[in-house]
């Protein structure tokens, strides 16, 4: 169970960075092939963007939050922090986004999404199909796990714990949202 909620007790540094970059590359290809783009930290929208732009956005939404977490760690931690650990662990946490993105390419989910968009554009009251409802629950679970993994990435890489760490993580999430809105 601990491995599911906090894999960073067991993997960090260069190894997690390599895996993380593979997850980011796979997510990029999946998003591109499905005509999606990650247009914010945790939001994926439909857009026919070139591959380089999809990749750039994927890297941006990983590296900017990682940088903010690193700066926060420098301020809070009494330990020596390595950039490779914060980059590696946060990159590895992108696996959860990959798990969230992959089902979006299922025909049932795609059709359901298109029907919803069409209904919204025509002004009708949209009724999400079963596939979209199941996917919504799945994406909610993934989102919760994404935040848990990112918190644990921060806690393990920067050796912070307790209320101080939770409060700092919430502040960092607010800062990330503001920075992402500006970008």
């Amino acid at each position, binding site marked *: 169970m601990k491995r599911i909620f906090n894999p960073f007790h067991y993997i*960090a540094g260069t190894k997690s960075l390599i895996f993380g970059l593979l997850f980011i590359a796979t997510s990029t290809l999946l998003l591109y092939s499905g005509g999606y783009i990650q247009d914010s930290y945790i939001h994926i929208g439909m857009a026919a963007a070139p591959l380089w732009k999809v990749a750039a956005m994927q890297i941006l939404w990983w590296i900017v939050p990682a940088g903010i977490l690193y700066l926060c760690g420098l301020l809070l931690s009494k330990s020596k922090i390595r950039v490779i650990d914060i980059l590696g*662990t946060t990159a590895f946490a992108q696996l959860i986004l990959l798990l969230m993105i992959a089902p979006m390419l299922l025909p049932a989910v795609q059709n359901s999404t298109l029907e919803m968009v069409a209904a919204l554009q025509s002004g009708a009251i949209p009724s999400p199909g079963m596939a979209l409802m199941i996917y919504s629950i799945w994406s909610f679970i993934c989102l919760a796990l994404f935040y848990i993994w990112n918190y644990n990435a921060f806690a393990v890489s920067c*050796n912070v714990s307790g209320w101080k760490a939770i409060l700092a993580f919430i502040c960092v999430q607010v800062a990330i949202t503001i920075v992402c809105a500006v970008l």
Partner: protein
Amino acid sequence: MSVKKNFPTTCPSCGGVLSVKSLQCAECQTTVQGDFAIHPLLRLSADEQQFVHAFIMCSGSLKQMAVDMGLSYPTVRNILDNIIEKLNSYEENF
């Protein structure tokens, strides 16, 4: 059946730090009495003492320890940092 006894370092009554009053030779039973302070390393928990032992046996290589323990480098580094912090607080009163 031999029972593994843990070395007590804190008073079960008030939680204060214990000191050694007497020591005895296992060979001739000669007893030495006095008031000997417990070294800060002995006040660490059994797991922490085992960690310090493993750290020395690895020649201080945290990377090697991480491999041996099956943990990530920052996790091992964090355990060490927490022990350092504990030892610093103990040494203030040593």
